[in-house]
């Protein structure tokens, strides 16, 4: 469908058509002859570039029937100048695990979005969803109907679970210590209700990485971070180590000296690993992928609580379960997830992320509530301050 299109002059944005990096301005311009909304978006953005201010308004509850999330209401505050972006709602669509597609599936998504919206996307949003940028309230139900018919569903927003996301894991990485994509799909299906209907104090994100390299930044960007690791010895092919050395790798300087626990020893002929002191950091394996590999007793470390700054400051996830085996149907993990949601959903304050909740009530108390025993792996070091809170004390009869 081709709109009756009014083009705006964009001299400032045109500067960003120059240079070797792919230009987002060019992306908008590909739709210029077809979509009024692409032109008014360019127009409003040019106006932002001129005045150094943004012109979007927040809020307005919009969405599809029966869901409490997945659509983000957005309105222009310059609707008289740029009427086509008066409504500019965002739709979050569940990505397939590992962001794998066929060209056929992508074309299906493109056809729906060209017909029903601006034709502009984010591939992908920072939570992981396919993000459709810009449509009207009236289009929401039809888009939803067409997406579900093709097997796609909406992601979360507000106080919902967000679409879980994961690295490409065993599909294409020899280091994956569990099936990240299998787990991601399973959890997404298991928690459909939490994903579509708000039931928490605030958002909850789950990210899965297959090894401690954490290619999806789960430790920084998800309330629940599930990071693959192993507990036995690194697998080593000594002849391949020698091959790296003879090919010119300075094993002493590049590998041994960068080991955080000094558990590697290289005498020019043989690499020895004190596996009992290896903290599974991946460095040596990263440098010599043909010679070294994670061990065979594989599973994951489960960490909890990372978030961006709002409200109590940024946090990294901290250890909840030092090691867990992850095999379908992932019963133990799902059970733990249910148990950590319970006290937070019940006692968390409005807009309190689980990391903040744990800091407020105390990690020790939280563990007690969840039924997990405290172990030294959970802390960098034991407490330094002497203000120990005791729930009970002894008294003379």
């Amino acid at each position, binding site marked *: 469908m081709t709109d009756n299109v009014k083009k705006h002059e964009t001299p400032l944005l045109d500067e*960003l058509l120059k*240079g*070797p*990096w792919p*230009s*987002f301005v060019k992306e*908008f311009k*590909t*739709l210029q002859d077809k979509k009024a909304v*692409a032109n008014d978006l360019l127009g409003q*953005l040019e106006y932002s570039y001129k005045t*150094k*201010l*943004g012109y*979007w308004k*927040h*809020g307005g509850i919009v969405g599809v029937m029966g869901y409490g999330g997945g659509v983000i209401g957005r309105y222009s505050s310059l609707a008289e100048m740029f009427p086509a972006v008066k409504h500019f709602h965002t739709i979050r669509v*569940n990505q*397939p695990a590992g962001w*794998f*597609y*066929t*060209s056929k599936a*992508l*074309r299906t*998504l*493109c*056809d729906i979005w060209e017909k029903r919206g601006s*034709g*502009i*996307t*984010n*591939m*992908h949003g920072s939570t992981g969803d396919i993000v459709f*940028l810009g449509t009207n309230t009236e289009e929401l139900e039809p888009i939803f109907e067409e997406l579900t018919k093709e097997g796609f*569903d909406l992601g979360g927003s507000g106080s919902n679970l967000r*679409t879980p996301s994961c690295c490409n894991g*065993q*599909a*294409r990485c*020899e280091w994956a210590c569990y099936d990240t994509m299998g787990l991601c*799909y399973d959890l*997404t*299906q298991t928690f459909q209700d939490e994903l579509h209907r708000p039931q928490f104090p605030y958002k909850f994100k789950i990210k899965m990485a297959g090894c401690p*390299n*954490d*290619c999806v930044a789960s*430790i*920084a*960007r998800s309330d629940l971070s599930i990071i693959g690791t192993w507990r036995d010895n690194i697998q080593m092919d000594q002849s391949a180590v020698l091959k790296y050395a003879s090919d010119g790798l300075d094993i002493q*300087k590049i590998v041994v000296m*960068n080991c955080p626990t000094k558990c590697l020893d290289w005498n020019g002929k043989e690499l020895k690993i004190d596996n009992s002191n290896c903290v599974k950091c991946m*460095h040596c394996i990263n*440098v010599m*992928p043909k010679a070294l590999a994670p061990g065979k007793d594989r599973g994951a470390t489960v960490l909890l609580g990372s978030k961006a*700054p*709002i409200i109590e*400051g*940024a946090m*990294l996830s901290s250890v909840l379960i030092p090691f867990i085996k992850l095999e379908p149907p992932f019963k133990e993990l799902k059970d733990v997830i249910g148990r950590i949601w319970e006290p937070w959903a019940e006692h968390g304050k409005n807009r309190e992320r689980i990391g903040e909740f744990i800091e407020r009530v105390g990690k020790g108390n939280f563990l007690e509530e969840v039924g997990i025993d405290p172990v030294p792996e959970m802390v960098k070091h034991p407490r330094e301050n002497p203000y120990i809170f005791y729930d009970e004390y002894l008294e003379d009869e």
Partner: protein
Amino acid sequence: MSEKQARITDIGPPHHDKFLPPVIKENYGKWKYHENPRPGVLVHVSHSGAKIWSVRCATPRILSVISIRKICELADKYADGYLRFTSRNNFELLITKEANVDPAIKEAIAIGYPVGGTGNSLSNIVHTQGWVHCHSAATDASGVVKAVMDELFVHFQEQKLPAKLRIALACCLNMCGAVHCSDISILGVHRRPPKADDANLGKICEVPNLIASCPTAAIRPTTKNGVATVEIEEEKCMFCANCYTVCPALPINDALNDGVSIWVGGKVSNARSTPSFSKLAIPWLPNTPPRWPEVVSAVKNIVDVWAKDARPYERVGEWVSRIGWPRFFKKTGIEFTKHHIDDFKHCGGTFATSTQMRHNG
């Protein structure tokens, strides 16, 4: 909407099995090792001997359906229609015929999607929405990213950096992009507390909600000219824009004061050192669209100094840990100010409490 058909809900995403190339299905969990034959290309080798080549191509993250269809054509031509996107907004063609790799690279570049970002290189910049569609943006996202990547382009195409370099950008401190753990973070900042539109505030906003939205309790109810409004205790405001999110009559965006800050030394991978937050390097630089020259040169300076000085595999944060923060400021020529000293909750832990210092040199 048709009444005949039952409405489909809660189906979740399609199963990934539908989208995996046969060679991946056959070798799922059986990969043995990988090599990096040239920048932007990984070849994974299975225990069975099977191979798959991944060609990593940059996108601006914002993609039109027109471009996605072009990318589909590329995938059809060289990768039997199979591709994936990465956590840093690149796409990867999943190729089974080695002979297709070079032509695929050539054509991807020709249609505007450069190839690189593997190994010790700079991958794509993870970023947020900016003026393209967020209300609280203190700077644009895509424009700054484009300008910075144009300048640092060679580091995407080559693998000559000491270690991986991860840059992220968020246009306000809510950090949708979770930029707080990157080698270099570019973060939009507001610096002027919101100003109440007294005449309209009572009409369009719920005052109790508004007061509750402020994390530092800086908002108080008041009455002006007989109408209910709010006032801001300016010294308590840390410019988070939460109040503006809740109430459009409390605008925080301000062309004179909004700008960009630069943070360094964070990482998420567990390799060598543990994951860590980025730390403040430059508190404020002006917003200068369309190409933000001050931001671009500040980032380039940090990258250049690090690339020259760091040891192999030393990420920015690991390099600074070795040389110390005083020397970081000295080598980069960045000024250290009172704003670099934390004064929020628990800040005391960031003060230096030892005499260990590199006085000489």
